[in-house]
């Protein structure tokens, strides 16, 4: 805990934070909930020169400071896509102060078949949110499995996604759900698909001066069932393996599925072979179809002090089986 001293700067808006990142360059780190950065700092693995705090971005009296560029970001291409409550808000000259993407960064809202979850939404809030539970229950199941209550009280969606731990729950479900991220550099927003954003161990497609502003998650369609399973040495530790599965059964057979695994590669991975093998299976055949898939392609587990690579691979397969059984049962119940 004898950290090298660093300087501290509070960003009034996400756009401010992006400008600060450009100004400070490589030595700067962004902090929101701190649940990923601060362990690295405490253990001496990260030694930032400047820490930029976005935990209050878009809230309180600081928010007005940098409202200009941000206000524009919210009314860009996205606003046209019908982002509902946010769409009109970013237009006026003062609108950036409490609305625009910064206000969206703290919101969970639904429109046009998508949930919009702001980057500063905490895991505890996502796990308890009634709209998220109703519209995409996989999110809350994953968020509620993160760490312990203290981690969930501070940790944020954007922090988890941008940190990019390959065993983390939220990147995994975002990949499984086909979510996309709204990314800003404070000047113009862009979108990135979760599957293309997570590039490797703690490595993402985020540029040095970019932040995640929100995630855009498809709501659970009619007839779909979902499941999330993870196993760790102690409850609250990082997962040895974790699986998110979505299955839609119609007329007695699997017509669509999405399956992804975490903790078994350098990033969350879709298990496309499993999805293909399931197609057309009756619920009773799912286990046999899974057995028929050889070694799971895409997973590259490693051995460490917690588990061997072989154990992780075996565990992953077991969890896929459990998740598919649960997701298909839910699909049948939903039909």
């Amino acid at each position, binding site marked *: 805990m004898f950290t*090298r*001293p660093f300087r501290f700067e509070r960003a009034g808006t996400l756009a401010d934070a992006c400008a600060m990142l450009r100004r400070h360059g490589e030595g700067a780190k962004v902090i929101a909930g701190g649940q990923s950065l601060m362990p690295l700092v405490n253990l001496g693995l990260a030694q930032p020169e400047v820490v930029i705090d976005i935990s209050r971005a878009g809230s309180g009296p600081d928010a007005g400071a940098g409202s200009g560029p941000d206000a524009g970001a919210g009314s860009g291409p996205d606003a046209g896509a019908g982002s509902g409550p946010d769409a009109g808000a970013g237009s006026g000259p003062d609108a950036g102060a409490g609305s625009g993407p910064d206000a969206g960064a703290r919101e969970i809202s639904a429109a046009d078949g998508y949930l919009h979850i702001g980057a500063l939404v905490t895991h505890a809030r996502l796990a308890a949110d009634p709209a998220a539970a109703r519209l995409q229950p996989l999110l809350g199941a994953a968020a509620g499995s993160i760490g312990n209550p203290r981690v969930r009280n*501070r940790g944020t969606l954007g922090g988890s996604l941008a940190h990019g731990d390959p065993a983390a729950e939220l990147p995994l479900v975002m990949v499984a759900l086909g979510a996309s991220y709204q990314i800003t550099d404070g000047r113009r927003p862009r979108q990135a698909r979760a599957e293309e954003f997570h590039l490797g161990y703690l490595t993402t497609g985020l540029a040095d001066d970019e932040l995640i502003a929100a995630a855009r998650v498809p709501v659970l369609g009619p007839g779909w069932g979902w499941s999330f399973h993870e196993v760790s040495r102690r409850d609250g530790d990082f997962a040895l393996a974790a699986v998110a599965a979505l299955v839609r059964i119609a007329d007695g057979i699997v017509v669509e599925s999405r399956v992804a695994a975490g903790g078994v590669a350098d990033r969350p991975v879709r298990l496309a072979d499993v999805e293909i093998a399931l197609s057309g299976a009756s619920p009773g055949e799912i286990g046999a179809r899974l057995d028929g898939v050889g070694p799971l392609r895409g997973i590259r587990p490693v051995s460490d002090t917690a588990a061997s690579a072989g154990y992780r691979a075996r565990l992953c397969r077991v969890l896929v089986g459990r998740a598919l059984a649960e997701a298909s049962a839910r699909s049948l119940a939903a039909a």
Partner: protein
Amino acid sequence: MSAESRTSAEIAVTLTVNGREVSRTAGAHLTLLRWLREAAGVTDPKYGCGEGSCGSCTVLVDGQPVSACLVLAAQVDGAAVTTAAGLLQADGSLGPLQRAFQQRHAAQCGFCTPGMLVTAAAALAGGRRLGRAEIRAALHGNLCRCTGYGPIVDAIELAQDEAPR
């Protein structure tokens, strides 16, 4: 405005600690835990793992349990912070949770106790009676290497039965 003038190596932070307003100017890199212990002299929360797994640094920030070692003091400027010492009665005698921990021998080495106490206080603050499983779930992430947890859960049950809060 230059980059240097907007960033701070030292920063003034004001927190309401256990009901008392405390202002200190200290290193901007100080975690809430180090600010409390080194700048404000509040030493009941302990440094354990530094990564959020052990819970010995737990304090309540605006009523919510957080790992004080994973939050910068500057981030929570203006907040109300409760440590175990904040659970004392106004006259300085032990509060109901602290008394129950004593009566049920819920502290052995004592290192986890301040974190256990404030975590329990937050769990009971809702006012609803908690079952043992719920108490255990609330303590999830607060590690004790002495008691085996039984006496701690006993103590929290006793506290909620004796003094519903």
